[in-house]
């Protein structure tokens, strides 16, 4: 794992997403989130819980439903998330937590990780 500040929990998680993983395109969002919960450092998971709470506080639907319904898919891939994040940035779809500026979809995924 690259060396980043402990408080950049989101980024640790994003790095996890960016790191080479054997993800198949048949995995659903929830399954991948579960896999990351098992393998990520505890402080990263703790911070994902913060994202989840903020996600709900801002009146959003459950992140799993958001990801599946909003994107009309329950398929997950690292490349898809990366592509959608870029689109979120281009279309001004942001989610802000503790001042950290995230694309909405990546925030939903992090919230999903922190949802259990």
């Amino acid at each position, binding site marked *: 794992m690259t*060396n980043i500040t402990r*408080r950049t929990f989101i980024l640790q998680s994003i790095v996890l997403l960016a790191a080479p993983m054997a993800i198949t395109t048949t995995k659903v969002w929830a399954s991948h989130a579960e896999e990351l919960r098992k393998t990520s450092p505890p*402080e990263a998971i703790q911070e994902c819980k913060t994202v989840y709470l903020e996600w709900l506080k801002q009146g959003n639907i459950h992140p799993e439903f958001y990801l599946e319904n909003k994107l009309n898919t329950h398929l997950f891939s690292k490349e898809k998330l990366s592509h959608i994040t870029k689109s979120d940035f281009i279309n001004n779809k942001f989610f802000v937590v*503790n*001042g*950290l500026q*995230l694309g909405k979809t990546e925030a939903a995924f992090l919230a999903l990780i922190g949802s259990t």
Partner: protein
Amino acid sequence: MLVDVTKINNSQVYNTDVCILGGGVAGIVLANELEGNDTKVIMLDSGNESYHLETQELYKAQSVPEHFPAPFYSRLRFLGGSSNHWENSTERLDPIDFEKRDWINDSGWPIKYGDVLEYYPAAEQYCGVGKDGYQLDFWQNKLRFKDSFSGSELFHTALAKSPQIPTRFFKKFGSRLVKSKNINIFKNANITDLVFNHELQKVISVKFSSLNKIPHQVNAKIFIMCFGGLENARMLLHFNEKNANKLGNEFDNVGRYFMEHPTIRAAHFFPFKENTIDKVYEGIPDTSMQILARGKLNKSAQIKNKTINIRLFFNKQTKLQLSEGISSAHILADSMNKSETPDNFGSHLVNVLKDADLIAEQYLRSKFNSSFSEDADSFGGYQIISMIEQTPSRNNRIYLGTETDQLNIKKLKIDWKVSSNDKENAWKTLRLFAQDPWLQSIGRVRLLEDEKYRIWGSQLGFGQHHMGTTKMSNIAQNGVVDPSLKVFGTSNFYISGSSVFPTGGHVPPTLTIVALTIKLADELKKIL
């Protein structure tokens, strides 16, 4: 010749062609430009060749706003002026700085960017940063660095240059002036008064003395005031007290529109990889010079978003330095000292608990010079330091107080604040950076909006650039000097320095001060 006024025991009257008031950057450049021709020049400076406390005390202000740097410390009152302690960072203003921007009141200069551009190369030589300009292509080619902003449609890289050894203007140019046949420098010469013929609209003479108060006088054809951004206004207000505001102050503009360069530490940037930002953004040397890159909002983005110019510097930080827990601990401590509860009290408490080990590390280091965490010193990200353009406001002003200095001249008072519009524009620009589509593959940004009271309060930094107090304008109603820097209502009295800037831009003013002064010298040579 260098004349020490303290050694002149009887009142004297001197006659000359040009009298330069002030021996700082502008005064020295002007004298240097007039050196070697038939024009007789006298330059008067309050100090001598080095710092002297009694003289420096003449710079004490009566009052300044909370957190504002005391003018006693930010300025130096001896030959060379504030160049005796500046960092010598130089950048040119941008074309947009000279243009009228309908979202910024009182924006626009009465001269064009092109009028100053032709003088920038010579100004760069004065400032010791060579003749190669600031073009990114040129320096990238020479120093082989990566443009970290390529790919962004909103931001680009701009370069600041400074010599390895800062240019002390009197040290660099003084001996030539002292040896000159047509220049006489009077040191320990404090201007106390000015004689103005109202009918002819002409300054006839200035009166000066050392701290021993023996009065002397200079009669000249032309006078140029080069005291600096605060002192130009202070002395002009002083002169106007006896002259019914005829010297550029008919419309109460002297001292107004005072601008600084507020500097904030309001965002953190976390790249996915440690070496994303090229080392040129931390500054790299090139023989005798330091080249420092930073981010800048494109002109089109400024226009589209109706926002101000900002310099973005990237300051590499360790995990310890970027700890949110340490930051929250400071906020909680500040609030306790004021017996207040901060906004987001719960979040700050959680931050402190989560970063308890880094807080302990910080405590160990500061109290016991000890450490238990090597990881605390590993790369954490970047602090983004932003120097912002302050928009002109009539209510930001310097004026005369009731207390006087040793020479019986009223001390200055300063009213100044950052407008809510400027604060909002600073956040807007930082948000543009944080949400730039180009950035999403590189890293993420955290805006420290929950720390805004500290950022704009006790943590607010300053460029210590004093601008706008005798601003340039086409008409007297809106300014103090005309486009040729002649004081309105006079035929032979000029001002040079950052006090004439109608807008401050977002870069250090010295390069532009020098350029404007060289331009003024060219114009004076035509009429002398």
